[in-house]
């Protein structure tokens, strides 16, 4: 084997690998989308792999009759409250971790992450009991608080790496030229951190959007989209749903994630503090 064939072979293996990885992710998305809009006769036709006739009937039924639209609304509200609370708490914490040296800093950083090691199903019953006592059960605020607890560690870590990327001298320059520390945070650090913070917000949004376990156990009437879909699919309405409903539901779930990635891909690298230049 000469150098040239070796080179071509290497390239071939490389592209085959890339293709496999992309196919792994993309094919289910395409299938869900296609079958979500397929007519049952196409779906059950053994001669057909790809459907040829489409309908929006099942997506529509899911959205309107079966309450997925309410689920979407609830999900958005929960996600926004989650972002609001976790940012209100997480940004100052992230800033402190990034910019100040204080005793126990490493312990705090470690325990922030360690919090996420605790499996949520273990807490399920105590959480429900606590929520009943606090009258938070089956409220959107309740779900948002639970989601905040789950996303806050990430918000702290992500924002701290974003703030660490804004050089200390930029803030100091602002202080020398007439701003207070707080003023220089709002006029200098925050605008510079904004793209990264936007990415962190989207990350939190998607985390909350996808979370199904806590949302399912804490709500009954006011369900978020994944919880709502789960109860429909698992047969809360009498027997498991037909397959094409499942694909339609999958499509409804996938759409925001794809939209998110499309807009956020540029910032995703920044989010982990790799670069901020």
């Amino acid at each position: 084997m000469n150098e040239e064939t070796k080179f071509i072979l290497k390239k071939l293996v490389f592209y085959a690998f890339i293709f496999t990885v992309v196919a792994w992710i993309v094919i289910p998305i395409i299938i869900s989308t296609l079958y979500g809009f397929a007519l049952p006769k196409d779906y059950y036709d053994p001669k057909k792999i790809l459907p040829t006739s489409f309908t929006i009937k099942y997506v529509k039924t899911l959205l309107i009759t079966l309450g997925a639209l309410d689920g979407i609304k609830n999900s958005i509200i929960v996600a926004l409250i989650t972002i609001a609370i976790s940012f209100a708490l997480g940004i100052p914490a992230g800033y402190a971790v990034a910019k100040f040296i204080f005793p126990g800093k490493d312990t705090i950083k470690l325990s922030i992450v360690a919090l996420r090691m605790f499996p949520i199903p273990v807490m399920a019953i105590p959480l429900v009991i606590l929520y009943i006592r606090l009258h938070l059960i089956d409220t959107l605020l309740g779900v948002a608080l639970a989601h905040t607890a789950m996303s806050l560690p990430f918000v702290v870590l992500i924002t701290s790496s974003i703030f660490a990327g804004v050089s200390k001298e930029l803030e100091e320059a602002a202080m020398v030229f007439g701003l207070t520390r707080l003023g220089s945070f709002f006029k200098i650090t925050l605008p510079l951190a904004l793209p990264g913070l936007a990415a962190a917000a989207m990350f939190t949004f998607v985390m909350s959007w996808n979370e199904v376990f806590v949302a399912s156990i804490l709500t009954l009437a006011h369900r978020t989209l994944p919880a709502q879909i789960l109860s429909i699919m698992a047969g809360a309405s009498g027997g498991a749903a037909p397959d094409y409903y499942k694909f339609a539901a999958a499509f409804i779930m996938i759409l925001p994630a794809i939209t998110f990635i499309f807009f956020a891909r540029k910032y995703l690298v920044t989010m982990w503090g790799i670069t901020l230049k």
Partner: protein
Amino acid sequence: MVEVRLENLKKYFGNGKVKAVDGIDLTIKDGEFLVLLGPSGCGKTTTLRMIAGLESPTGGKIWFGDKDVTYFSPKDRNISMVFQSYAVWPHMTVYDNIAFPLKIKKHPRDEIDKKVKWAAGMLQIGNLLDRYPAQLSGGQRQRVAVARAIVVEPAVLLMDEPLSNLDAKLRVAMRAEIKKLQTKLKVTTIYVTHDQVEAMTMGDRIAVMNKGKLLQVGPPTEVYLKPNSIFVGTFIGAPEMNLLEVSIKEKENGLVLEGTGLEITLPEEFRELLERYINKSVIFGIRPEHMTIEGVSTLEHVKRAREIEGTVDFIEALGTDTIVHARVGEGNLIKIKLPGHIPLEIGSKVKIVVDLDNIHIFDKTTENAVI
């Protein structure tokens, strides 16, 4: 425009374990260009940051004129600062960067515009005002940082190694430009650097620091010609001052510096200063440029000279200068800086001429200068 006075200024880190600045007394005159010079970690930047208010002192006081500003926040001190990394805000255009300090102080719009254009003109960046810092070169960013610093017409201008990130050629150009600008504006300036050439060329006075202490303050030539300690003597000047351990002996023709392979008879006027060092060892210091080699080049201005013998060990030809490494006695290696290109053969015996008016003698234990 104000006089800055530091009074026993101290900054300790880690509960007093690290004495970054250890009691500094220094007065910077109104309109003076003072250079704080020292190796990295000597406390010069910490001192500057305390003057800026970015660091609060552990002890001591900072006076601006007759105002005690020790615990003022930076924004209330009427100062400007040029940072080592420029610290030009990346999300603002050059114009906004320069205008920002004025906007905070709520100057009227047309006045801001006028001042920004004046400062940009001074630094020759008038054509870059719409650009963002990312579109500028390092040198241009540096100019923006300086323009921003002078636009507020500060009482004190602080510079923290502003040229260290520039390439050698640009550094030389900016050095002259900053100095000229300061002379024009007559603003009290404190300039931190570890580069002795910058210190020599820019400062009205140089303050040499080491290990948190102030060693010597004086005009550049004084610090260069009359260093008060071994540290100052070797830190300023390149190649650095030659140091040889010698002892002082009383001989029939006067006091003599005696070391391995050299014997230098000293003029009678040094006797008083050296009396208590007779028969003791001291450190003899001589700068490479204060020596010459007999028959090769002359030091025309030299009034009194002594000769020692050496062997050429190595030659560094720099083009404009030649640095001759010569072996004197056993193991003593001294460097001699001669102008121009000097063709000397390695291993050849030479007579080294020492300028007696530029010799230094340091106490061996205190390392302070005796002569």
